[in-house]
């Protein structure tokens, strides 16, 4: 049973109370519930959230073993100049749920406002395909984009990875793998309320077992599904599965880490950001007070969400040197006139 924390942001409170209370011990039920909530939300979204200003196309990518289909969705802003920088994005869903629809709204928003081409990856899901299937798909997608960059108008020297929730773990792991395997050099890792650590020992993970959007009980189920034969919390779990276990973070790409106060994943995200910084990695950390897991795309009209999505777009544009949307990056900056100076 989920409960809304009393100090939740006022504009997020109603949505927090209405978050579907999903149980990830029941994978088909969680998949179904997540897809249903998304379809209902989509039915109410204004056409503005469609793909205006973008070309949106789906295509299949080749994989290392060639035995399965790996779909990706491309969001190409009309204002992108060839060769354009690109973000490879991985959706959330606890490694067991979600698809190209899950983060469609965010990908549209980021591509349109930042001017960066976004490639969203439909990686394989646990428990049918436990670790490392999803990571291999995500890394293969990055390699494909790097190898085919000139042909599709992408600059192979300006690539970023990013992901939300479980997709954040995949993005961080792809960044580790690219460093270790001398893969494509990355300009940014965008980690949005990321899953980081299967040990589940942080204060936020211990405290938040009934928070809206995500809770510690579902984290237990998530790791069990994703790790398959590996026991969660045991030393057998590699950093490529749980990037919070990585001890050497030097040489990783610059990072932007977003966390939400009432999210069990909060402290593992903050911890990773702190350790990146200590390892000499340029790191931007934004901890959103009063927010819950998934707040920005869950309640896109709330002030905190507008702030978060604007920030993600501008971080991307700055890191990758893209051409942002002509009218300015933000709905807020267009609608709110600046305060007159008071002195």
């Amino acid at each position, binding site marked *: 049973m989920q409960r809304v924390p009393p100090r939740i942001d006022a504009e997020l409170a*109603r949505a927090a109370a209405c978050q579907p*209370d999903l149980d990830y011990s029941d994978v088909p039920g969680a998949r179904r519930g997540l897809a249903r909530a998304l379809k*209902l939300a989509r*039915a109410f979204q204004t056409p503005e959230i469609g793909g205006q200003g973008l070309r949106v196309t789906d295509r299949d990518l080749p994989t290392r073993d060639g035995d399965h289909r790996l779909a990706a969705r491309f969001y190409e802003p009309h204002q992108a100049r060839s060769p354009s920088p690109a973000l490879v994005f991985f959706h959330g869903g606890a490694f067991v749920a979600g698809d190209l629809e899950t983060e469609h709204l965010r990908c549209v928003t980021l591509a349109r406002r930042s001017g960066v081409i976004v490639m969203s990856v439909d990686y394989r899901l646990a428990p049918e395909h436990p670790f490392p299937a999803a990571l291999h798909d995500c890394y293969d997608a990055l390699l494909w984009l790097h190898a085919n960059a000139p042909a599709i108008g992408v600059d192979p020297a300006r690539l970023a990875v990013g992901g939300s929730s479980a997709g954040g773990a995949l993005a961080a792991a792809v960044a580790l793998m690219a460093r270790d395997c001398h893969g494509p050099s990355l300009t940014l890792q965008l980690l949005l309320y990321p899953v980081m650590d299967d040990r589940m020992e942080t204060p936020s993970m211990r405290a938040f077992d009934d928070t809206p959007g995500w809770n510690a009980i579902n984290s237990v189920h998530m790791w069990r599904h994703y790790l398959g034969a590996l026991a969660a919390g045991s030393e057998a779990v590699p950093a490529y599965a749980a990037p919070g276990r990585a001890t050497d973070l030097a040489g990783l790409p610059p990072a932007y880490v977003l966390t939400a106060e009432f999210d069990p994943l909060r402290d593992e995200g903050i911890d990773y950001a702190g350790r990146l910084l200590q390892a000499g990695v340029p790191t931007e950390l934004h901890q959103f007070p009063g927010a819950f897991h998934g707040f920005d795309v869950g309640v896109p009209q709330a002030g905190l969400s507008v702030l978060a999505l604007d920030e993600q777009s501008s971080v991307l544009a700055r890191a990758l040197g893209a051409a942002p949307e002509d009218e300015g990056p933000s709905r807020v900056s267009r609608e709110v006139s600046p305060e007159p100076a008071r002195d």
Partner: protein
Amino acid sequence: MRTDDPTVHKLSELWTSLSGGKDVRSDVSFIDQGADSLLLITLLSEIESEFDAYIEAEELLENPTIESLARVIERKLEPSDARLVDRRPHTVDPRASP
């Protein structure tokens, strides 16, 4: 409103308490009565615990009134073979037309 129909009645009660309950209509779309996606997600969870029936997003969007959604719920609550069962009384008049 057909208050004699138990499913319609129960569904009206659920919707009244969720929507704040003024002028609830069983033949007008939830959306025209002020529902947004958050309210509909909550309505579906309530239906699940109240009726033990899982309603898909499409089923709700295609049957967006209390009356029509009540029919969807009833169909789901029928045992799967119920539609095949002949429900006519066994003592039918043989002279009645088939």
